[in-house]
């Protein structure tokens, strides 16, 4: 277990400091959540019944409002019956951190008890496929179009005004249309992701392309590069690290469209898991589901950021992060 301190000693002071802040930025919200959950004097507007006493409708484990509980205790006292007992509790929609952690573990690693639901991993896998196809289709159109619009002024002038307009149309508004055209399964969901991502993508990539140092293009031309070669020999390699960064941001964007997309047609994926669990009032599972989306997004972006260092060793802007 001595690897972690060793790892720490291997880092320089600024990396260590940054890591500390990084961990802190997660610990702080967790601390607040824990305080609200575990300190009974903070909030806790409910009482969880541990003994029903003389109150006939109280059941053990039931959550009642604090005032109602006090009234019932008073009633029982006056009626000289057995007093109910209970502990302060938060509403059911705010589970404690350990409950969510358990739910997350259960969801990911234990087999299901309910038979009418998909497991969390299976739901997630479905969601990831929707994102993958949506983002791939969007990129196959958006990146080349963006590069062309950024390189050739006429293409940009022709394409961009319409795209500028279209990107203000909310993607979910196309839900019904997508279902009518593409059916009720994965088609319309992928379409929503594409509509949500593509138009931003063209504009962002075009902008990145325009920021390429013009001297590089001129240098290539004086070296004998023909116009058509410029695109593959200078423009694309020149913008590649920035394009990669754009794609990372856009992938995050695609994730935010996931929930809306999955509600369209027959609901599916992690969204279906979450809504299903909410219907059963398993809010710990709901939080676990939400969190796992965040985790996947966060970790995949971290990995992609790492990867960019190996992919683009010449990219200087990385050293500033």
């Amino acid at each position, binding site marked *: 277990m001595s690897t972690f301190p060793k790892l720490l000693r291997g880092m320089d002071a600024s990396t260590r400091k940054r890591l500390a802040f990084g961990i802190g930025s997660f610990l702080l919200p967790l601390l607040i959540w824990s305080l609200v959950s575990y300190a009974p004097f903070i909030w806790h507007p409910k009482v969880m019944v541990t003994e029903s006493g003389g109150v006939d409708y109280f059941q053990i484990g039931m959550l009642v409002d604090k005032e109602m509980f006090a009234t019932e205790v008073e009633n029982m006292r006056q009626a000289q019956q057995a007093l109910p007992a209970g502990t302060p509790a938060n509403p059911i929609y705010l589970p404690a951190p350990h409950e969510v952690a358990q739910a997350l573990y259960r969801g990911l690693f234990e087999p299901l008890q309910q038979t009418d639901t998909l497991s969390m991993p299976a739901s997630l896998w479905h969601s990831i496929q929707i994102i993958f196809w949506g983002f791939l289709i969007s990129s196959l159109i958006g990146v080349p179009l963006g590069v062309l619009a950024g390189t050739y002024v006429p293409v940009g002038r022709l394409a961009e005004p319409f795209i500028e307009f279209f990107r203000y149309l909310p993607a979910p508004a196309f839900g019904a249309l997508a279902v009518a055209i593409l059916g009720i399964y994965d088609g319309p969901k992928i379409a929503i992701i594409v509509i949500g991502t593509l138009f931003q993508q063209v504009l962002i990539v075009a902008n990145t392309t325009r920021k390429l140092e013009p*001297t590089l293009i*001129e240098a*290539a031309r*004086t*070296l*004998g590069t023909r116009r058509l070669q410029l695109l593959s020999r200078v423009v694309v390699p*020149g913008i590649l690290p920035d394009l990669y960064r754009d794609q990372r941001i856009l992938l995050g964007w695609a994730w935010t469209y996931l929930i809306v997309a999955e509600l369209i047609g027959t609901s599916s994926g992690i969204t279906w898991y979450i809504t299903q669990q909410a219907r059963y009032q398993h809010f710990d599972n709901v939080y676990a589901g939400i969190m796992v989306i965040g985790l996947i997004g966060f970790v995949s972006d971290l990995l992609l950021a790492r990867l960019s260092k190996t992919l683009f060793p*010449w990219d200087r802007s990385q050293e500033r992060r």
Partner: protein
Amino acid sequence: MNANSAHLPSYLEQSEAVQARFASIRERDVVLEVRNLNKRFRSTHGEVDALRDINFSIHRREFICVIGSSGCGKSTLIRILAGLEQQSSGEALLDGKPITGPGQDRGMVFQGYSLFPWLTVKKNVMFGPLANGQSTSHAEREALLWLELVGLEKFADAYPHQLSGGMRQRVAIARALVNQPRILLMDEPFGALDAQTRAKMQSHLLDIWRNIDITVLFITHDLDEAIYLADRILVLKPHPGEVQEIIEVPVPRPRSAAQFTSPEFLATKARLEQLIHPAPVAESENEQAVKPHMIRFTNVADNVE
């Protein structure tokens, strides 16, 4: 005229050796000829006459410097010669053929930021040969040869951002020369370097020029640099850019740093200063528009002078 220039010879006086050299240069073929060249920019702010009626010619293996104050059209001229800009009228001929666009027969070195950051030093130099359809192995051999010439063969696999400013410009020179152009066009290539590196690069450039068959057109606004490097100096006058004078530098070759104080050198410099910074009347309109209004941000008692 300032006091000590009274003792100087005229910049027009040439020793016999220098005269003989210019005579032999004039015998050589004309590599570049510029005839009645005009360039007018149309922009939203109106029209700018950047160049007006430029005429000159350059002989094979001649070293020409172009000098002039900021905004007088030096870059415009060299960009037209490189084929990156289109003239409004007149013509520029390379070996008698009109220049219509960029081509590998002219190499260009920019002031900075022109190396491809995603390519190693070697691949940067290989760019030209590969773009012109040569095989990778041939391009690589050529690249290593030219890198050796600029003394950077050890850095072949480094990326440009790992090099100092001087080394980057050496790579840029090698990258331009590997195409074996007829003329090397250089737009203030050493302008961003510190004085020491700059001096080193100047003598290095003269070394290269001595050893290979290349004609050089070099833009600078540093008078010493122009005199140190050039056979002839083309002085441009701003607004509009016109040729004011073409000066034959009377400083004998081979050049060395010791000549910076020689009478010929000082005489030429005095003449250039006279042309470029005449009596202060001729402030350009642009410069007049920028009049800083100095506000005091420090305590009145807190004086630095």
